[in-house]
């Protein structure tokens, strides 16, 4: 009798575990993240309001003060992350969290390619992986508004969008090939002191797919009509800002498990400091 009870109990446990396994979701997966100690310099970004590229041309969006990594996460740092978080290694990662090209050029689980500099930005990482990395450093991904707010700056001004050269210069950076193989912080920082917003990798944002260009920006409307039923079918607030079209286009082509050659990320963090 006793034996039967133990067996039943054992079987129950077994099935319960199975059940659990089945129910795994990104949230649960992230809960098992082990912390890593990385001291990327963070820059205080004074909050304010800005006019989003997509949206109502009269509606400013406010951005609270936050901290932003001064540069994208690097290969070396990502190696440190997968070293203590084996579930994020190339051979272990689940396809729902990262597609087949995850860390494509890494010859093995704990080694990045010889062609890649350790202090070059990590790429071929999914949104899930970027999130997990951020969590392991006690940070998070920046929101799209936070990222775009900082991206308004050129080397001199916090908001350089009005300058004619601004979009052209960014486009010229976007068009360079293999730029993701070069180390970070080799170019000038922007007015905030932030490096490599445009000249290394496209960057994941927390809500990368919250603004959807329709894959066909001629329509001048949004995919998610509920989110953007702003009366007239407005589209971009600055139709000559081709650089922004390219960036938003890239974002809307992504899915969260995609890994792409020139797509990386940087981390952000909340702050209690309101002004400096």
């Amino acid at each position, binding site marked *: 009798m006793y034996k039967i009870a133990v067996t039943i109990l054992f079987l129950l446990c077994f099935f319960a575990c199975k059940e659990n396994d089945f129910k795994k979701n990104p949230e649960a997966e992230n809960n098992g993240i082990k912390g890593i100690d990385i001291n990327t310099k963070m820059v205080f970004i004074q909050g304010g309001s800005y006019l989003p590229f997509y949206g109502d041309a009269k509606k400013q969006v406010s951005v609270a003060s936050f901290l932003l990594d001064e540069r994208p996460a690097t290969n070396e740092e990502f190696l440190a992350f997968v070293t203590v978080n084996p579930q994020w290694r190339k051979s272990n990662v689940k396809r729902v969290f990262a597609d087949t*090209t995850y860390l494509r050029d890494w010859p093995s689980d704990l080694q990045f390619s010889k062609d890649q500099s350790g202090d070059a930005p990590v790429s071929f990482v999914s949104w899930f992986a970027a999130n997990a990395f951020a969590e392991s450093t006690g940070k998070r991904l920046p929101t799209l508004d936070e990222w775009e707010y900082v991206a308004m700056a050129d080397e001199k001004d916090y908001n350089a969008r009005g300058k004619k050269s601004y*979009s*052209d210069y960014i*486009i*010229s950076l*976007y*068009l*360079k*090939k*293999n730029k993701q193989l070069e180390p970070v912080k080799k170019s000038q920082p922007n007015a905030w002191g932030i490096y490599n917003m445009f000249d290394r990798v496209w960057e994941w944002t927390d809500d990368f797919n919250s603004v959807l*260009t*329709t*894959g*066909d*920006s*001629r*329509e001048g409307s949004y995919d998610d009509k509920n989110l953007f039923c702003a009366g007239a079918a407005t589209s971009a607030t600055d139709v*000559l800002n*081709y650089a922004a*079209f*390219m960036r*938003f*286009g*890239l974002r*809307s*082509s*992504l899915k969260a498990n*995609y890994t*792409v*050659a*020139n*797509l990386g990320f940087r981390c952000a963090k909340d702050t209690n400091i309101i002004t400096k």
Partner: protein
Amino acid sequence: MKNNIILIVVATVCVLTSCRTNTDANEGRALRNAEVKTSGDAEKAEITAAPLVPKPVGNRPAKKLIVELETTETEGIIADSLKYTFWTFNNIVPGSFIRVREGDDIELRLKNAANSAMPHNIDLHAVNGPGGGAEVTFVSPGKEASFHFKALNPGLYVYHCAAPPVPMHIANGMYGLILVEPEGGLPKVDREYYIMQGEFYTKAGDNSVLVFDNDKGNDEKPDYVLFNGKKGSLLGKNMLQANVGETDRLLIGNGGPYRVSPLDAPGESFDKGSLEGGSLVNHNVQTTLIPAGGATIVEFTVEAPGEYVLVDHSIFRAFNKGAIGKLYVSGEKNHEVFEKIK
């Protein structure tokens, strides 16, 4: 009052039915084609680089085809020794020529090269569906997408990339042609050639490789207006070839993004030209107009040998910006048609 209403109703019905009597062979054609059943396994469609076109469909029934295209961003010669960063379908400008039959079931597979910096997609004007396939094929670098469409309307159609910013993708060379032949095929001819015109707006980039110039594009002031993506693509040893007495067909598209192309072959009027690539056929045309994002099919019989010039007759474009090509016709002189007197 009641009589008036009856009168109005009767009049309306009369007007509507009189419209209905104005039918032609094309009415309901797309609907009929939608019902066409194809059988067997899908086969890979033959696709070609300009100026060549795939084999005609002839008498074959409708079938299943797979068309594979890859979007790339690649350097190539635009003029003389100058390089330009083209964005392409299958590494060529214009992109591969696609040839299908009405009623065909086509699976279009679009792959974006892994080293692309941008997402791309394809909008085929021959497709009946949202964005001509633009939304469903919107692919990040290194990714693939595919969709099925049935060719419903015969004609010659432009396809192009419609990823944001659309003008930039088209101006960089992302366009090509798809021919949907009617049941039984187009009338048999001796030769067929694929020509596509496009403008290029350039400025110096890195390592003296030219890149797209946003401002010139917005001002609609191209540096080059070219046939088949390269200055001299139809000149010298690249001249199109034909023989006296032949009937030849040109399948011509205009990628734009902006200019309308009044295409003309001085010395050889087009015996037959499909208006804007559609079903309406025009005869004895000297210069035919091809809208940006449009196409046309012209047929002609050459009666006398020699070199014939093909130009965009907005003539600065031909003389100064590259929109010029030649057709070399071999054969016996025909004194009845053309002769120097003194």
